[in-house]
């Protein structure tokens, strides 16, 4: 079975400072990893994904994430936080495999990111 852990319920960062939202995962086989953001009363918006290749993945709105296989982590980062980055962030995983079949995502419980002016 696959699982995702987001150890922090909330992360507080001052505007302009770098931010990190942590995610660790467990999956048999190769992991496909995703970050989504959710604003109030909105659906999930895709930020970035790691499938294969370079361990540093760049995504939307200046976000990036670093895949670390040995630590089974996929932390979300941004060099300089904006107040508008305040939202709920979800990490998700599924097992990478060839051929068709079930590929639903397993999500973490989410981390509230609060950027203080």
């Amino acid at each position, binding site marked *: 079975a696959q699982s995702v852990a987001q150890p922090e319920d909330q992360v507080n960062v001052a505007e302009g400072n770098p931010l990190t939202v942590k995610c660790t995962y467990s999956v048999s086989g190769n992991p496909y990893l995703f970050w989504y953001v959710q604003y109030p009363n909105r659906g*999930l918006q895709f930020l970035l994904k790691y499938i294969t290749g370079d361990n540093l993945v760049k995504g939307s709105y200046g976000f990036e994430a670093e895949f670390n296989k040995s630590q089974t982590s996929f932390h979300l980062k941004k060099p300089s936080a904006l107040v508008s980055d305040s939202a709920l962030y979800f990490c998700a995983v599924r097992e990478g495999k060839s051929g068709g079949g079930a*590929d639903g*995502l397993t999500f973490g419980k989410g981390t509230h990111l609060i950027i203080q002016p």
Partner: protein
Amino acid sequence: EAGVAQSPRYKIIEKRQSVAFWCNPISGHATLYWYQQILGQGPKLLIQFQNNGVVDDSQLPKDRFSAERLKGVDSTLKIQPAKLEDSAVYLCASSLNWFTETQYFGPGTRLLVL
């Protein structure tokens, strides 16, 4: 490109009543998913369709939940009868096919069961 559409956006019902949610995926997307997001938790997959066939419904409570995707486009998720614990946001997502890997989500339907 239009996103995933869902309706209604909000629904309030009493327990033991029935309710249905509708989803229209992004045009051309073969794979469609329904997720349940309970307050304070991440989304949980209920069912996955590939065209109009079910790929995975292992987490769907089949005694009360049902879903269909006729003609491989729109999909409907139904709950009958509803329980208090079904109060959640129901999210629909679609992807071009399983190769594409990225799932795009609709705005969700917020259900409150009283």
